[in-house]
């Protein structure tokens, strides 16, 4: 019983920085959603049902009255295509989860809690208590603060003044550092960054996410091959 509590608290402790970093993002999201005519309740429901920051921002960018459902769903699908790779990588580590826990757990798998779970899985067995200890406060905080954003957004003024729009970028850089494995990671990051930025400039969102991820994987595949050859060549 106590290990259950320990794991849940550990999850809460691990997610806390990401949760706090997401607060200004959520406020910004709420403010933008309100600007596009979404009500506080609709913003709350989107957070609770979709819970995918990047896709939600893109959707609000496309939102109009009436909402272009096809474009919004397609953009969501493209931006979240990375989840297929993420859940494929996480699934074998959810061994102790029941079917219901796996389904509900994956329903709320976002970049941050997934990255922290992958990191945790390197040294410990992933438990449902740890996973949901991260998830529940994170989801609750995202829904509450994005709804709050629809109400107070206008009063806060331009979020760029506080650098709030950059918190997301800085947070992701910190998460990447947690996965650093030397040379292979360097080439992965370089290829993913360049491919994503170029695709964003030349073709436009949301294709940059897919292009960046695929080029990053290709670079890792190539760089790892070099390493294999180098160790084979050594007597």
């Amino acid at each position, binding site marked *: 019983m106590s290990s259950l509590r320990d794991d849940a608290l550990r999850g809460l402790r691990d997610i806390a*920085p990401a949760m706090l*970093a997401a607060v200004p993002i959520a406020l910004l999201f709420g403010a933008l959603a309100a600007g596009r005519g*979404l009500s*506080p309740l*609709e913003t709350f*429901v*989107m957070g609770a*049902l*979709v819970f995918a920051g990047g*896709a939600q921002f893109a959707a609000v960018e496309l939102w109009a009255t009436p*909402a272009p459902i096809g474009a*919004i*769903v397609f953009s*969501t*699908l493209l931006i*979240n295509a*990375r*989840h*297929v790779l*993420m859940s*494929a*990588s*996480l*699934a074998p580590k959810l061994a102790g989860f029941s079917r219901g826990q*796996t*389904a509900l757990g*994956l329903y709320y798998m976002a*970049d941050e809690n*997934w*990255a922290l779970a992958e990191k945790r899985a390197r040294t410990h067995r992933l438990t449902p208590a740890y996973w949901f200890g991260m998830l529940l406060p994170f989801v609750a905080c995202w829904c509450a603060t994005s709804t709050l954003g629809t109400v107070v957004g206008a009063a806060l003024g331009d979020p760029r*003044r506080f650098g*709030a*729009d*950059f*918190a*997301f*970028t*800085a*947070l*992701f*850089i*910190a998460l*990447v*550092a947690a*996965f650093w494995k030397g040379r*292979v990671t360097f080439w*992965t*990051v370089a290829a*993913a960054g360049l491919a*994503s*930025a170029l695709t964003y400039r030349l073709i436009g969102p949301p294709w940059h*996410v897919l292009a*960046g*991820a695929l080029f*990053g*994987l290709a670079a890792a*595949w190539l*760089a*790892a091959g070099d390493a*294999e050859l180098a160790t084979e060549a050594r007597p």
Partner: protein
Amino acid sequence: MTLDPHNLLAILGMAIATFATRLAGLALAGRLQLSPRAQAAFDAIPPAVLVAVIAPSALATGWPETVAALLAALAATRLPLLGVVAVGVAAVVALRALA
């Protein structure tokens, strides 16, 4: 407090699309027999995905954002998560003021 049926439909569509991507990996996971090279590519999924998401903001916005991203990366070698966010946000505010 309104919930427009058309908006709700759009939100439900997003929810289904998102859950589909989050569940799809389950079907994939058991079937993969990976060579060491493919394993390295698989292990590279986390950094590749994270970088692909933020690259437009870090590399294709302006020099203040690019420099702030580099400073955050430097901070990430020695600071915890929240410290890195603080450095990145403070740097971007200061550099935008200069720009």
